[in-house]
Each structure stands twice: as structure tokens, then as C-alpha cells.
């Protein structure tokens, strides 16, 4: 009995040592689902045995809210979209500038780094490094809804009850473009912007009968499309590309007015405690074979040169089916959201959600 006990105790002690003995540093990653798959974390921890990676999955709004609640601590590396850097930094001061000498920026596509200089630069300092990009547009089951081309087709009565939408700002932007307006140009003129989205809100309320349900997460949308319960929805291209593998009739449509493009970044929270580990992670995931692994699990395209070619085979095919040269030229990169704009949009979206229909 005593011997057994001793063996047990020494076992526990040994376990304790192996976990803490190496003075492990922890890299706390605040990111999106699919951006840090277990296989990549394993390889990273193999290469840097003294770094433990902890991952929290989130989305843009929650990332900012979480960092705001803690004043920028609790995480060592975050991945908000580039459009969520400037306003969040101005209002809440939750990020710190990047030390670009720590990152090999030559691997990135030039236009990706340019976007950082344009949208993530405050007082001469760059706050973000690009990681992956993708677009928002429509996802369509072309065997059942072959004629869908633009955002306003979501309101086409022939798809009544077979449509889903995500009640977020991209929907307003898409409808604005499809009705011939340029919402990005109106960003600075709140009155004009409000009038414009009010009108879109009315349109969305009128076509609420068309909608089966508003989806809230990628899994939601996947289930609705794969079961055939809906035939068209607005979507992230990454979700659409993943569905393409299951059912090649499900295609991403960049829309006639151009898909809305986003770039998810690497940004350091203000009070992150493992900057070195964070830079190691950034350089690590930009290696070609890791890029492919992350594209596989996220469906998004890496910001490194040749990102599309580095996508796994099925996804590359889906991208080719969705984007021709013209569609790629027509991408609408989403600029920084000015403070207060989301409040206006939120009011319109609330109104749409609260309106009653059949």
C-alpha cells in the first residue's frame, strides 16, 4: 500500500515538473474558429517547447469587447479585422504598436501590407500585421437558385422562405452597393449615411417575409444550406468554400457589385505579456506548409504571396469557381469603421429584427 502510494505521489510530482519545470511561457491567442487548428499548435509547441499556446475563439465584436473590459490584458495576441483597429484604439486604447523588425514582412502580398499602412496606422505607427483575408458575398445552391447575382436578389419573391441572412452590418453595405450607392464614401457624413441605411432598413423589413431565419454562426448556415432548407444567403466565402467540398452545387457568388473584402490581422493587445512568443507565432504561421493547414481549417486565404495557390486543393477549386479575374479586381476592401457608425447601423438592424412579418 505504502509503496503504491509512493509511486503515485512521485508520479504526480513528475507530472507537475514536466508541466512547469521547463519555465513554460504561455501565448494566449484571441482568434477566430479555425485560425489556430490543433495540428498547427502541436507543430508550434514542438518547435518551441517552452511556449504553451492557449486559444480562445471569438469574433470581431467580442474581441474588442473583451479587450475593452480588461483594458487590453488577458491575451497576448488578437486577430481582429483591419476595420476594427483605428476606432477601437481611439476609443478604448486596447492595442499596442507592432515592432515590424520582428516580422518578416517580405512574405506578404504587397497590397496586404499597403492595407495595413492605410487602415491600421495611427500616429505613424503600424498596429497590425495581415494574416488571412476573405470576402463576404452570397452563397447559393445553383441547382435551385441559378439566377442569383446580387445582394438585392435576397428579396426576390421566387425564393420566399428559402432565404437566410446574417443581420449584421455587411448586409447593409451589400444592399447599399447593389442599389447603386457607395457606403464607404458616406462614412464621414453621418447624416447621409443614416438616410441611406434607413432606406435599406425599410427594404429589409419589406422583404422579411422572404427570410426563413437570420443565421448567427457558420455552423447554423452550413446546416441550413446542406439540408436544403434554404437556397441562398449572405455568407463568408470561407463557409461557402467549405460547403463546396460537401456539395459542389453550393457556390460562392461575389455579386455583381463586387464582394466585400476583409483582412483579419495579428494585433498585440496593449497589455499582452508574451510579445516574443507572439512574433514567433506570426512568423511560424506564415510558412507555406502551415499556411495550407490554416487555410484548410479556416477556408480563408492567407495574406502571404501566392496565398491562393497555397490553399488546399478543394478550396482552391472553390475559389476558382467563385472568382474570375474581374471579380478579383472588383473586391471592395472594407475601410476602418469610424466611431459611432455602428450605433447608427445597430438601430436600423434592431428595427429590422423587431419588425413583424407573416
Amino acid at each position, binding site marked *: 500500500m505504502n509503496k503504491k502510494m509512493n509511486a503515485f505521489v512521485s508520479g504526480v510530482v513528475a507530472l507537475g515538473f514536466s508541466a512547469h519545470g521547463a519555465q513554460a511561457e504561455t501565448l494566449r491567442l484571441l482568434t477566430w474558429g479555425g485560425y489556430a487548428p490543433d495540428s498547427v499548435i502541436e507543430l508550434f509547441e514542438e518547435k518551441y517547447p517552452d511556449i504553451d499556446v492557449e486559444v480562445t475563439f471569438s469574433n470581431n465584436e467580442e474581441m474588442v469587447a473583451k479587450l475593452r473590459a480588461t483594458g487590453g490584458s488577458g491575451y497576448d495576441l488578437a486577430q481582429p479585422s483591419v476595420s476594427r483597429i483605428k476606432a477601437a484604439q481611439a476609443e478604448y486604447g486596447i492595442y499596442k504598436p507592432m515592432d515590424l523588425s520582428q516580422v518578416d514582412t517580405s512574405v506578404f502580398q504587397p497590397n496586404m501590407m499597403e492595407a495595413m499602412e492605410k487602415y491600421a496606422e495611427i500616429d505613424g505607427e503600424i498596429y497590425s500585421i495581415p494574416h488571412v483575408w476573405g470576402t463576404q458575398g452570397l452563397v447559393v445552391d445553383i441547382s435551385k437558385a441559378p439566377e442569383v447575382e446580387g445582394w438585392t436578389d435576397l428579396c426576390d419573391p421566387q425564393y420566399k422562405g428559402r432565404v437566410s441572412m446574417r443581420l449584421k452590418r455587411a448586409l447593409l453595405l451589400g444592399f447599399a452597393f447593389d442599389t447603386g450607392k457607395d457606403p464607404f464614401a458616406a462614412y464621414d457624413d453621418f447624416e447621409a449615411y443614416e438616410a441611406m441605411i434607413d432606406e435599406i432598413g425599410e427594404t429589409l423589413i419589406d422583404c*422579411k417575409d422572404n427570410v426563413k431565419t437570420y443565421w448567427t454562426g457558420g455552423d447554423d448556415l452550413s446546416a441550413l444550406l446542406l439540408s436544403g432548407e434554404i437556397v441562398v444567403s449572405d455568407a463568408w466565402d470561407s463557409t461557402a468554400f467549405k460547403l463546396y467540398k460537401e456539395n459542389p452545387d453550393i457556390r460562392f457568388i461575389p455579386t455583381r457589385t463586387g464582394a466585400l473584402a476583409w483582412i483579419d490581422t495579428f494585433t498585440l493587445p496593449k497589455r499582452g505579456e508574451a510579445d516574443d512568443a507572439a512574433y514567433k507565432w506570426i512568423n511560424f504561421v506564415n510558412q507555406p506548409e502551415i499556411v495550407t493547414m490554416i487555410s484548410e481549417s479556416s477556408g480563408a486565404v492567407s495574406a502571404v504571396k501566392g496565398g491562393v495557390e497555397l490553399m488546399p486543393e478543394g478550396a482552391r477549386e472553390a475559389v476558382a469557381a467563385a472568382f474570375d479575374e474581374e471579380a478579383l479586381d472588383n473586391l471592395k476592401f472594407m475601410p476602418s469603421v469610424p466611431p459611432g457608425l455602428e450605433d447608427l447601423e*445597430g438601430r436600423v438592424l434592431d428595427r429590422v429584427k423587431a419588425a413583424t412579418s407573416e
Partner: protein
Amino acid sequence: MGRSADRLSLVLLFTPFALWIGLLIVLPQLGIGYVSLREKVGVNEFTFGFGNYAAFFEEPIYRNTLLRTAWISILVTALALIMGFPVAYYIAKIAKERSRAGLFLMCLIPLWVSDLVRAYGWILLLRETGVISTTLVSLGIISGPVEMLYNDVTVIIGLVYTVILFMIVPLVSTLQGMDDALLEAGYNLGGSRLTVFRRIIVPYAMPGIVAGCIITFMLTAGSYLTPILLGGKNSSWFTEQIYTQFITRYNWEMGSTFGVLLLIFTSLVVWLGLRLTGQSLATTVAKE
């Protein structure tokens, strides 16, 4: 000597409770109350006032959502009472001593699974391509698939299922204390079943009924997952508004205002309910 020891034990026993109430309930509520009075006028600029409350009353959407939430919560509470009472009565009075524990356990088992999983269970059953719809179609009872998800009825079903246990437990414990002799006396004096139920059982069970109703109402009005997952395009829920304000709109001030209003409003409904039924907390929940 004895007195100071008594006092010490009182202090020691009271401290954890006071800390819990103070640090986890009163303090955060004060914080929320403080933030709700802060009005945002610009980037990092604030003034104090009731502007957020005024904004709530000006916007019919928020008002209506709160009323809707309260109305559905009352309905859910009533349904939970109607469905829970027979179950509780059976467990407490009719079932044999030996099977009582087993029956009680069966009511508890659904609680071992998280809210989220239970909600997804309903989704699998009720969706257009779900279990019930496809079964009905294959049995030839209906001609085409039918959508049973994404409406208020589904939300109510899901909520009743989630909260009914909190109705059953207090009811069982009150009913168990009832002496069967009371019922026999009622029948011997010529009372019909209805009279015995109305004049003896219900008054006796009142503390349990009030406690159960308060718990289920508060749980329902404050629930988030079930209405979000099962609700459809038309079913907004007030807690969802609070989440939206805090998270997607970065508007903590408005979110706090909503939080305070939800607390006040639900307390008001409970108070009104007690007044209308002629009960008070002292004679029911806190009855010795």
C-alpha cells in the same frame, strides 16, 4: 463570555453570505447602475443624466421587446405551473415512498445536460428536415416537410422544458409536508374533488406555488440561449438586446440601462403578481 462566543459565531456564519451578496450581487449592480447614468457625448467624453433611460422610452422597439419578453415569461410560468403541479402532486402524494426518489431523479436528469445541448436537441427534432417532420412525411400523415422551428411556440416549448423543474421542486417539498388527514377530513365533510383541491390543496401549496412562479419567471425573463437558438426572425428577446448593446454596439451605457430596467421591470411584475393574488412574501415563501 458565552455572549461574545455567540456573537463570534454569528459573525463567522454571516461573513461568507455578506461577502457573496456584497461582492457578487450588490457591487456589480451598483456598477451597472452607475454606468447606466453615464451618457456618451463623444469619444471618451461622458456626462451624467437620465438620457439613456429617456432613449429607451422613446424607442418603441426596446419597449415592445421588454413587454414581449415579460408577456411570454408570464405565459411560460403559467404553463410550467399547470404542467408541473400534477407531476409534483403525483411525486409527493400518490407515488409510493420507494419510487419517489426515482421519479424525482427522472425530473432532475435533464438538468445534467447543458442548456445549449438541450436547445440543439429541440432543433434536431423540430427543424424542417428534422426528426419529427421527416417521420410524419414518411408515415404519410403530412404531404410535405413542415417547419416547426423559428417561431414563438417553439421558444415557449423550449423555455417550459428548461424551467419546469424549478417549478416542480418547491411544489414537491411543500406538498410533501401536507398531512393526508387534511384531505380525508375534506372528503368526509362532503367536499367534492374540486372543492378539496381548491380549498385545501392549493392554499396549502401556496408557498411552493409562489416560490416556483418567482423562480421560473425570473429564469425565463433572464434566459438567453433558448430564445436565441429556437426563436425565429420575429422573436426578439430582451436579453438579446442587452447582449447586442454591450458586444456588437460597444454601448455599455445603453446595455447597463437595459439591465437595470429588466431588473426593475421583473421585480415589478413579481410584486404585481403577489398583490393581485393577495399573497405576500412573508406569508408564502418565508413562511415557517
